[in-house]
């Protein structure tokens, strides 16, 4: 989430809504609420009547009403979107304005990092593709999934089915029917499977995990497969500095990391996935399991000492100096790990650490049904029935806390010193 300096960063608490469930129109029900990035608004889908759905923002419903609405999301620049249906046709509504183009189905609303570009997956007459800011791909496909939007929003890609397949035609499938389409144009090369395409830093190249036969896995970059194949691969990632591509690979029963088809981290792990780079490409981290049932984070191939049954939500600061993740045991006893050190508290749930400028780490956690915000291991004294993920101020010195407590929706700007718990 990109915080803007224009937001109100005056430390202190502001009650935005005395009643978070209030709406000036009478409604049958209100659904789960979403908070705007700047914390000034709280929105939720409300059902006003038969086939009458809309968004209610800070107690005021949109003027437009739709037959259906779902997937409310704020863009990073604070625009409220929802996927809506009118006359059986679907589209995306942004701040109450629906795109003119409608489709047989729309889902997967996505945003560029700065929020300026809004894109969504569409299906029109059984053909699939991306729609960016209301404009669909020129060519749609028989099927498309694994949709991905570049960080800057300038490019879209998806795994697409480029050949038709008769029912139960296993030979046809094995000869390859999938490819990757970038901006609606499919690669010439066809594979059995394409998964998890990813853009490079300049949004000009795409790498994807592929399966070329029932047992041969590899990575294709701009349609060209690595010469080497592996027993299995997971999601590839581009080195933002050099453009090299890495992907976790399985070789002789163990997982390691390959770069451009050659082994980078010796396959010695029970698991290795979610590779992440620092901006300078010098630090590569991934979630790994050095032993069976014991997970941690490996940085440039070296695992942290602290190991837990489950590790998820790996995040890294752009400079690579701060790497955080969360761990759990049987989906409880959640802990936050930062650079290999484990914070003291354990929680019933953690919602993924957030790394801020300057290497501070914040996280929303839940204990006994109450949610709280942690900064560098210490909790903000107030807890919420429902909170939203913390957002750092541009200088990293303050944390924006958003949450509903006692029915009130509050917006709190907290300085580091305020986290005492």
């Amino acid at each position, binding site marked *: 989430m990109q915080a803007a300096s224009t937001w109100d960063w005056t430390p202190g608490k502001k009650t935005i809504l005395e009643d978070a469930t209030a709406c000036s129109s009478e409604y049958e029900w209100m659904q789960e609420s979403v908070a705007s990035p700047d914390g000034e608004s709280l929105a939720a889908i409300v059902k006003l009547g038969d086939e009458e759905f809309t968004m209610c923002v800070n107690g005021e419903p949109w003027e437009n009403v739709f037959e259906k609405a779902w997937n409310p999301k704020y863009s990073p620049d604070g625009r409220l979107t929802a996927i809506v249906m009118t006359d059986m046709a679907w589209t995306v509504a942004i701040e109450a304005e629906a795109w003119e183009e409608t489709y*047989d189905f729309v889902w997967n609303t996505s945003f560029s990092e700065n929020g300026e570009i809004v894109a969504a997956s569409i299906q029109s007459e059984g053909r699939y593709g991306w729609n960016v800011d209301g404009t669909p791909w020129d060519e749609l496909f028989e099927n498309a999934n694994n949709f991905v939007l570049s960080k800057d929003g300038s490019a879209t890609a998806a795994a697409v089915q480029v050949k038709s397949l008769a029912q139960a035609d296993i030979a046809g499938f094995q000869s390859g029917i999938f490819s990757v389409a970038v901006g609606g144009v499919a690669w010439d090369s066809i594979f059995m499977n394409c998964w998890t395409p990813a853009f490079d830093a300049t949004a000009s190249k795409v790498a994807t995990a592929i399966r070329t036969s029932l047992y041969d896995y590899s990575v294709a970059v701009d349609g060209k497969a690595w010469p080497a194949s592996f027993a299995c691969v997971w999601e590839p990632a581009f080195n933002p500095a050099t453009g090299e591509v890495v992907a976790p690979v399985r070789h002789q029963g163990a997982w390691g990391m390959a770069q451009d088809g050659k082994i980078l981290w010796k396959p010695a792990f029970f698991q290795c996935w979610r590779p992440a780079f620092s901006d300078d490409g010098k630090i590569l981290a991934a979630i790994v399991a050095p032993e069976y049932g014991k997970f941690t984070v490996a940085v440039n191939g070296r695992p942290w000492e602290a190991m837990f049954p489950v590790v998820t939500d790996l995040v890294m600061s752009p400079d690579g100096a701060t790497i955080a993740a969360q761990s759990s045991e049987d989906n409880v006893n959640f802990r936050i790990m930062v650079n290999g050190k484990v914070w003291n508290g354990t929680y019933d749930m953690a919602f993924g650490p957030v790394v801020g400028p300057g290497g501070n780490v914040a996280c929303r956690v839940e204990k006994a049904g109450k949610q709280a915000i942690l900064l560098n291991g210490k909790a903000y004294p107030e807890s919420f029935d429902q909170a939203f993920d913390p957002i750092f101020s541009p200088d990293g010195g303050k944390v924006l806390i958003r949450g509903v407590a006692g029915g009130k929706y509050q917006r709190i700007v907290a300085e580091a010193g305020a986290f005492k718990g």
Partner: protein
Amino acid sequence: MSTIADRRIEDAGLEAGIARLTPEKIKKTIEAVLAGECGARLKTYIETCVRCGMCAKACHYYMSHKDPSYAPVGKVKQTMWEIINKKGDVTPEFIHQCAQVAYTECNLCRRCMHYCPLGIDTAYIMSVVRRICHKLGVTPQYIQDTAHSHSATMNQMWVKDDEWIDTLFWQEDEARDEMPNLRIPLDKEGADFMYSVIAPEPKFRTQLIYQAAYIFNAAGLNWTMPSFPGWDNSNMAMFTGDSEIMARIERQHFEAAQRLRVKRIVMGECGHAFRAVYDMGNRWLGWKWHPVPVVHSIEFFWELLTSGKIKIAQKYPGPVTVHDPCNTIRGRGLMDKLREVVNMICDGIVEMHPNREHNYCCCAGGGVINCGPPFKNVRIVGNKIKAEQLKATGVKTCVAPCHNCHGGLDDIIHKFDVGMELKFLGDIIYQCMEKPEAE
């Protein structure tokens, strides 16, 4: 006495598969699987089996045919022993036989483990045979197609991303006629549980989604379903021997739950899906236990009924019998809870014998029913013993909390004129519960 060679069945997948094989490829592949993926378990199982034949009576195929080549040990003899004795020097035709035995004549139900004094896991040995067949590209056409679907769409039935969501909206609409404020909450972060189903539910058995949604709404539960891939908990790749795709599906399923920050995963009434999620996928992925607790519908309904969140208005009439699905009974020990649930919702149980962990398999599981029409007759005739078991109860209703079991039992009920109706727990609960809107 016959052997597998005497009952060869033509299948497009198997024929095309063996047509591609050469002796060199077979030997190389077998050696790679045995050396690379098998260890002390397979070695001790093969070596210490004393060939006593006690396991014969465990297998419904054997009990139905009384033919030694259907006994668990007979199946091992016709496949794995031969493979090991000949060090992989076997013919393509032999691989066809291996595939037919392992995919279509063994349900991996594990009943034979209650018969082997040495604790030899025949289901595991058959899984290794399947793994070899998969690695050789010799798999029955229809189950391979579902494995392809899994790989391409992360669900078993080629359901596209939007079709899933659309189906949920449709069922939500349908159910709102009955319960106007009913919701199927999509992507609700932090819900108490994520409900996952198998792809045949949105494809063919949408009423099950309807019923589940109705029950959860009536009970006032905090639940969700993912709008993105990971919603399907079934896993046919596990049964073709494609461990890599098996694991990819399970990763997607667990990560869906993790992404939604739910406390638990509640699974619909499916057995093999439960096995994949509870016992298999997590291991291949390196998680010793499942990263998010996994609860089968049997147990979940038990919780709802015992906590009073749902109440039964009137019990389902007439005594019923209970079928124990292998993957939730032998695989998870839910036999007591299953009976408690059935007793709470039905007018008593007439037990089949044997029952509980010792119950005969439905003969559909383990991917056998998914191998499709070519093998259907063998599968049905091979479970005469189950039909007799059903008949002997004398009741008109059988509760079977598993999709595959429904498929398998339905077939034998028709073939052998058992005259019995099959019910999911959800069917009966939905039918018999106190309905808030009805008042």
